[in-house]
């Protein structure tokens, strides 16, 4: 089993959502997304950055096939396992299955017994494979959710604020971990966040969204090798970013 096989042919993620509306309990129509279109290249790490409640999660839910009530279209990258993986805001691990069972369940049936030692090793979960999720800290549960996502060798990985509600130190170490495991198993990544520094640390490109209804304000190319993104470099990037997108400050 070749674990580091890059996912598939060069088909980018293309999103073109014309409109997505919700109906509130009182029957009022609320426009969540309008004219949202962007592309993410093959093997690229992109961030959707926007204020809370601007429709980022809604966009991810549409791409995950969990919400089909919208007008427009999207095209997911193909190749590799042709699968989609997600890490939600909460880890969503099955409490009645061990960490390892949780990870293996996400795999197609004929790959259930594949070798996952390397993945668990990278994510520091080797000793926790037989634990139940209730025995894990939130940080460890997030790592297990990452393990589940990467184990499927997805053609695209969608992350919905995967480091929310963690203390800053844990979040920081998980960000580094995400980059390490992604470098070992490259795939197209689209991550939703409202944290600018997080986006600047992780992404190749940042797709900046306007408040509701979400539409693309512009794209910010980070264009700096990830190894060089230390604290001072990030401070400089933040300044650059605010210069280009003064309205999003």
């Amino acid at each position, binding site marked *: 089993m070749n674990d580091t096989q890059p996912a598939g042919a060069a088909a980018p993620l293309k999103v073109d959502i014309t409109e997505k509306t919700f109906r509130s309990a009182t029957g009022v129509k609320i426009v969540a997304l309008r004219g949202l279109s962007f592309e993410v290249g093959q093997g690229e790490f992109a961030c959707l950055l926007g204020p809370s409640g601007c429709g980022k999660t809604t966009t991810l839910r549409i791409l995950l096939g*969990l919400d089909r009530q919208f007008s427009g279209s999207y095209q997911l990258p193909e190749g590799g396992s042709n699968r989609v993986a997600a890490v939600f805001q909460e880890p*969503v691990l*099955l409490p009645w*299955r061990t960490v390892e069972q949780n990870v293996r369940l996400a795999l197609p049936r004929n790959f259930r017994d594949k070798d996952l030692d390397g993945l668990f090793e990278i994510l520091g979960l080797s000793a926790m494979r037989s634990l*139940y999720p209730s025995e894990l800290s939130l940080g460890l549960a997030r790592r297990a959710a990452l393990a589940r996502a990467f184990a499927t060798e997805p053609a695209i990985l969608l992350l919905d604020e995967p480091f929310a509600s963690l203390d800053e130190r844990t979040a920081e170490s998980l960000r580094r971990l995400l980059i390490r495991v992604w470098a070992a198993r490259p795939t197209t990544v689209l991550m939703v966040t409202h944290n600018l520094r997080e986006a600047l640390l992780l992404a190749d490109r940042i797709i900046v969204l306007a408040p509701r209804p979400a539409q693309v304000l512009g794209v910010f190319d980070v264009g700096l090798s990830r190894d060089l993104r230390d604290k001072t470099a990030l401070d400089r990037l933040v300044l650059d970013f605010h210069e280009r997108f003064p309205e999003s400050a």
Partner: protein
Amino acid sequence: MRAGFVSAGARARALARGGGIVWPAATVLASLLGLCLVWSLAAGLWPSRAFPPPLEVWRVLLKEAGSGDLGFHLAMTLSRVAAAYVVAMSIGSVIGVLLGTHRRADSFFNPWLVLFLNLPALVVIVLAYIWFGLTEAAAVGAVAINKIPNVVVTMREGARALDPRFAEMATVYRLGPIDYLRHILMPQLQPYFAAASRSGIALIWKIVLVVELLGRSSGVGFQIYLYFQIFDVAAILAYTLAFVAIMLLIELLLVQPLERYTTRWRRGSA
């Protein structure tokens, strides 16, 4: 006294974790012996054929067991209980989950459910015998129909409480229907299933006795009817207590260990 309460709680927790089993067993035994003692004293104070002492009941029990009658009738009743339980739990669970997940169907079928919930067991049994004859299938079916509405109500509650996030996770990772059933649906419904089972077995065996009394020529219910006609209270009690003992054993040796196993993922004592 107080210390006794505390240690009883600690023992219960130890039991829940599958730890010590000696102490609780000893407590149960002492409690049952005490009951026998009270019964024996009372029967000694008011001697009557209609109120035999425990030793008399024990003698009848041994006699019936020796002749093979007891074993045969217990087995008949137990097999009917098992059959009715399996039928009621499987049909009731499926209907319950369907109603719990389909709001329209639920509001349409709810009146039916209320009707069946309030249908007296005796009416169902009599009708089943009239319509389908004095057969084994009619007997088991009548018992199951009495139990199904209860299972439906409990399982419907369980289906309403299903966590949509797990279903979404299953969609994203493309879990097949069998995996979904096994790893997502059943574990979430397990507490409701256990609750329905618990109340189910107790209810079912009582109704089985009525079914046997009305239209079967075997089983504990039939024997009780027989001894009722000759006013043999000792035999009635012997059969009843023998069956209660079996149900207790099933609870202790089958239901509780199984439940402990299926809830092993809950940390510590719940």
